[in-house]
């Protein structure tokens, strides 16, 4: 990896014109504890990037390195051709919205928002108008003279946002800013925050452990696992084409199928389908909604013609109502257990096996990485895959 780091570092000034931030082989150790290893990431101007990960994945540490509150053990961070990670936090054109807002309790809302401008010694008239503008943008003008302790959590959240945005940073960092809000307010803020980001055009790096939140808000998601980047992609791509079993399981539900691939066919008894994966043992992710009840026209059963639509029979074991959809657990003839998401409806409560199908293309080959922090292989450890 050192060679990559060097070659990237060599190109210091002349970056891609749309690239705002360049994280190059950043690692962070706390004593023997490796929190981040070899993180490289390019963030484009105006992008909404979410760093998604479980607690302990290192996402907050990465954010703190960008803000300047932690020093990376190795690696570099560049912003628009300038080295960022060697600068103290107060010289970076980066602002942060803290997890618990960290408003100054001894100042009014107005003074909180104007703090950065006052420090920068902007003229009083400018401070006043920009603070008023920022408060209006987050719909908090009425509370300008209040103390932070007198307003609700959601309102404090807005003030923290205004306090950061009023300085017109190049980059805004948000450290799980919505985690303290209740579910309804949270959904509302997700929409508002996304709209605000579009409006101000500032690059956002948003840290969260909530995969749904990440999918709703982001242009791209960077999934962190145990201090390493698992996958960086758009929400659709990361959901539809997960690169690893961890990604597939962490983002949404999935069926992990362990298959034997021989001559372009994956065998996972009783299923088999066409694949371009080279011969050997491989893992596939098959989303529950990709499996559907088979259409009426009966295909020739037992045909070895290797169809692109895979059909199988299975017994219904369990049905859970989830509003618009139902989650079914079915057991196929060979004892393979699969989770299936279908439109909500009552299924015939009979002992007779049901017929299901899925497209071979929906079985996405994934690299095996484990869920959770231990690095043991998932192969054979999941009840859904029966070798």
């Amino acid at each position, binding site marked *: 990896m050192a060679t990559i780091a060097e070659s990237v570092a060599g190109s210091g000034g002349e970056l891609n014109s749309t690239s705002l931030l360049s994280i190059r082989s950043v690692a962070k150790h706390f004593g023997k504890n490796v929190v981040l290893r070899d993180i490289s990431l390019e963030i484009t101007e105006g992008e909404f990037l979410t760093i998604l990960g479980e*607690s302990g994945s290192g996402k*907050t540490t990465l954010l703190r390195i960008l*803000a*300047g*509150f932690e020093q990376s053990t190795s690696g570099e961070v560049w912003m628009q051709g300038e080295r960022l990670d060697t600068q*103290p*936090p*107060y010289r970076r054109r*980066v*602002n*942060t919205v*803290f*997890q*618990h807002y*960290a*408003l*100054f*309790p*001894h100042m009014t809302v107005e003074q909180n928002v104007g*703090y*950065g401008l006052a*420090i*920068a010694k902007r003229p009083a008239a400018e401070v006043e108008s920009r603070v008023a503008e920022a408060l209006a943008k987050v719909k908090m003008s009425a509370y300008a003279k209040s*103390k932070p*302790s007198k307003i609700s959590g959601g309102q404090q959240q807005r003030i923290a946002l205004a*306090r*950061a945005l009023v*300085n017109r940073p190049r980059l805004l960092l948000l450290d*799980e800013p919505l985690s303290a809000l209740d579910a309804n307010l949270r959904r509302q803020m997700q929409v508002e925050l996304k709209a605000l980001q579009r409006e101000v055009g500032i690059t956002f790096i948003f840290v969260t452990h909530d995969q749904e939140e990440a999918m709703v808000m982001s242009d791209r998601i960077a999934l962190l696992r145990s201090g390493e980047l698992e996958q960086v992609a758009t929400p659709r791509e990361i959901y539809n084409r997960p690169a690893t079993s961890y990604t597939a399981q962490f983002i949404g539900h999935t069926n992990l199928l362990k298959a034997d691939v021989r001559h372009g066919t994956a065998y996972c008894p009783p299923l088999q389908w066409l694949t371009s994966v080279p011969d050997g043992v491989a893992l596939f992710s098959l989303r529950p909604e990709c499996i559907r009840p088979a259409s009426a026209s009966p295909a020739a059963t037992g045909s070895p013609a290797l169809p692109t639509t895979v059909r199988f029979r299975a017994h219904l074991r369990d049905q859970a109502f989830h509003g618009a959809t139902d989650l079914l657990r079915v057991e196929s003839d060979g004892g393979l257990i699969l989770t299936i998401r279908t439109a909500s409806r009552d299924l015939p409560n009979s002992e007779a096996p049901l017929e299901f199908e899925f497209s071979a293309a929906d079985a996405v080959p994934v690299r095996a990485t484990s869920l959770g922090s231990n690095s043991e292989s998932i192969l054979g450890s999941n009840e859904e895959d029966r070798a």
Partner: protein
Amino acid sequence: MSATTPIKSPRWLTAHALAVFAFLYLPIVILILYSFNGQGVGGFPPRNLTFNWYRILFNDAPIWDSVLNSLLVAAAAMLIALLFGIPAALALDRAQFPGKALFRRLVLLPLILPGIITGLSLSMLFRVAEVKLSLLTIILGHGTALISVATTEVFAGLQKLNRAQEEASLDLGATYCQTFWRITVPNLKLSIIGAALLIFTLSMDEIAVSFFLIGRDNTLPLEIWGRLRRGITPEINAISTIIFLFSLIAIVFWYRLRTRAEVTPEIGAELVETAKH
């Protein structure tokens, strides 16, 4: 004890509480009463109430000299203790250095150590260093002994401070120095005022250390102590009453500061939350 049965308030418990209360405050009440007693310190109940002792007191130059000396010593000791104590507390809270755990315990030692030991050792030090004993030596004695009070009080305040606030300040462009004065100090204001008041009071009535370091000028406690050896007069009661009143005012002042501050939310709870991430 079942919650449904009404608890009979035991009479003896009330009586006991009253007794404790009396034990604590009766001496002070008597001290105050006798400062108005025309008969001097003897006789019960006090008779011929008079302000005479106060009149004598106000014309008693040596007493007022000693009061001034005490105020000077207390103010100077307070400055010294805060000047050294606040950076020590900051170091304990923020810096990592070898022997930090030891330092943290040792800094408390002067507070626990009997005043005699502190006083004696300082007096020997000054003798070796050939420093003439004066108010200055008392100031140095009080100042050094009370650094521990400043350190512990301010350290406690720092522990309750939400560090994210300081990070937010740095994030918004303030340097470390600006952050210290605009965010850290205002948040520590109560701890610093509390430490200052405590140091001032402790210095005002300190007798053991002062005894070893005294030069020609007396502090108030030593002046009173010296007079008591010649026999008590209600004049002492009068000066004690005045001291008591001033202490009371200081306590009320401190208490009001504190309750006003507690209206703002507990930043400690937020700190715990932040620490968990």
